[in-house]
């Protein structure tokens, strides 16, 4: 390999990227857009569920119950209802997803018999949200129950007995807030890198064939390897810049906790960038049309990366065959690595399996790309 020729290719390619609005848009705008869209749009947490309150009793106790619901982060009050008809209308119109119904003799029944029920009506067209809202409501009611018990005993002068129920104290590690954003945003970074990387390089060789510049280029002493590394160099730099942007946004804008080492992050990111750039380049060498190459690159990265990288859809819930296919998706390894580096602060050694998998992937792709290029018109 001749460094001078390699640099000549890299310089020429840089000028071309700089002057090609399409490449620039992919390189600069796509990460920005996707980061905003996916970072904000995709969140598995449900907060501030719209709640209608139908307090039939309106006593001190019932208002206290309402307050427990509305002062939590999980529900927000959107309307106060007066009649059953209102309740029906509110649910039909979709004004709220949950409605809290407090029966008319709630406090009396409770004090007399020691028990009564609250009703929560849920719009379960979105079952996921409804399930989660049920969970929140149960949590609030359980707390209410416990507090009432304590008060009851205190108020009746009975000695408070020892802890009568078993209290489950769970502690969550790594993502203490169980904040799904911390889990998703690193995955988003992987998706963006995969998309942008393979899109950019998918155009690079096919453009030369399409514009007729390849014929003259292959009549010079430039070798396939010089061409490949020369062309990959500027895209590698762009890919790393995009990665810095995305990872920076994840850490400083979305406040995903970063506990690993920067070195590990950069090294693994560079490795992943090499893999996705290599995939795009391989397609570009194989398919002599820009449109065809970029379409296939999109197809090969978009779906497998979103579905099979484990970025939102848990892989261990999938059928065996699909899980097996996911081993072929390079983003799978990178998503694992990113989460480990960000949330667990893992070292390269801890992540030996995904890192080695990416290494093998990079080696195979680059070798295939190098072999696929023929310095000939045949």
């Amino acid at each position, binding site marked *: 390999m001749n460094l001078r*020729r390699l640099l000549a290719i890299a310089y020429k390619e840089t000028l*071309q990227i700089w002057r090609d609005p399409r490449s620039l848009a992919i390189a600069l705008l796509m990460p920005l857009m996707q980061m905003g869209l996916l970072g904000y749009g995709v969140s598995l947490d449900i907060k501030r569920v719209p709640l209608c309150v139908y307090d039939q009793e309106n006593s001190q106790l019932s208002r206290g119950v309402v307050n427990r619901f509305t002062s939590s982060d999980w529900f927000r009050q959107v309307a106060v209802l007066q009649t059953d008809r209102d309740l029906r209308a509110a649910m039909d119109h979709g004004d709220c997803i949950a409605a809290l119904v407090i029966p008319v003799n709630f406090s009396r029944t409770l004090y007399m018999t020691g028990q009564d029920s609250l009703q929560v009506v849920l719009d379960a067209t979105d079952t996921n949200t409804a399930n989660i809202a049920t969970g929140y409501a149960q949590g609030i009611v359980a707390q209410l129950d416990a507090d009432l018990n304590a008060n009851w005993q205190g108020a009746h002068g009975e000695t408070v007995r020892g802890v009568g129920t078993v209290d489950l104290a769970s502690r969550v590690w790594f993502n203490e807030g169980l904040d799904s954003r911390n889990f998703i945003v690193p995955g988003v970074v992987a998706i963006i890198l995969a998309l942008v990387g393979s899109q950019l390089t998918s155009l690079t060789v096919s453009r030369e064939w399409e514009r007729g510049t390849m014929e*003259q*280029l292959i*009549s010079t*002493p430039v070798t396939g390897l010089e061409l490949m590394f020369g062309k990959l160099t500027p895209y590698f730099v762009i890919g790393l810049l995009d990665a810095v942007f995305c990872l920076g946004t994840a850490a400083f804008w979305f406040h995903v906790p970063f506990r690993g080492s920067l070195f590990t992050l950069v090294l693994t990111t560079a490795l992943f960038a090499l893999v996705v750039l290599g995939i795009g380049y391989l397609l570009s060498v194989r398919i002599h049309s820009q449109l065809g190459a970029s379409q296939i690159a999109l197809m090969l990265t978009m779906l497998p990366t979103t579905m099979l990288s484990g970025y939102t859809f848990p892989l261990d819930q999938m059928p065996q065959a699909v899980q097996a296919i996911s081993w072929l998706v390079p983003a799978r390894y990178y998503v694992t690595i990113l989460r480990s580096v960000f949330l667990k602060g893992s070292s390269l050694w801890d992540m030996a399996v995904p890192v080695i998998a990416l290494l093998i992937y990079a080696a195979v792709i680059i070798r295939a790309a190098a072999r696929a290029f023929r310095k000939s018109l045949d």
Partner: protein
Amino acid sequence: MSGAGGQVAVAAREVRRHFGALAAVDGISLSVKQGEIFGLVGPDGAGKTTLMRMLAGVLRPDEGEIVLDGVDVLADPEAAKARLSYMPQRFGLYEDLSVDENIFFYAELFGVERKARKTRAAELLDAAGMTPFRRRLAGQLSGGMKQKLGLVCALIHTPTVLLLDEPTTGVDPVSRREFWGILYSLRESGVTILLSTAYMDEAERCSRLALMHEGRVHDCDTPARLKQAMPGVLFAVTAPDPRAVRAALQDAPGVLGALLMGDRVNLRADSAARAPELAARLHERGVAYGDIAQVEPGIEDVFVALTGAGAA
């Protein structure tokens, strides 16, 4: 450089190349001496471009041997590429790069030293009349200037063999003259030039010509000798309706061929003594004509006579 003139710079032996069932190049042998301007002449589809590509090492022949400046192109195409320059028929430079950037790119690929590049680029651009356009994007150049830029890029590393595929197609006459000016000065410095052309006036400027037709070389000689070798003599018949003249005379005894040339018909006959006979035949048929004169054949006439190809 491979020594004194007279040495063979490009040799092809029994080169063949098929595309499917079509034999694009069907057994061509050539020998071009150092310092020659060698022309490949023939209609579209004669196999000129395919042959050029094989000589340039960008397309592999099915059979045959190609030796370029002492290097076996098939065995070691990369070594050959360092010595040659190839300019494809379709503009092969980067339209989104400026004139200077294209030159720089090709100079770097061929490892031209910085100083040498600067002086040589300045000389070549000057000779091509392109010095004022150095910063212009190649895509914004006229057709003629694009071809001249192609030549400048091809020459930046001083090749020993220059392969030009229809370099002046679509180029205005002034640019063509400048183009040929550069080619002549190259020949003086010992560069071997092999070009293909569809222009007959350009063919006459070559030191030797190969007349190509349907993948084969029919004849190969200097333009003058090719003309001499043409069987028969040539008459030019001017007429208000050249088609009527051709219709009246193409089957006359002794006429070997008739070629429409605008306001006249070029008639090839077996002897100069046929002139009165032909005039009489036109009178007899009542076809108006201006003059029947014996003329020097052009390359086009020779081409038609030797290949037997029909002409428009």
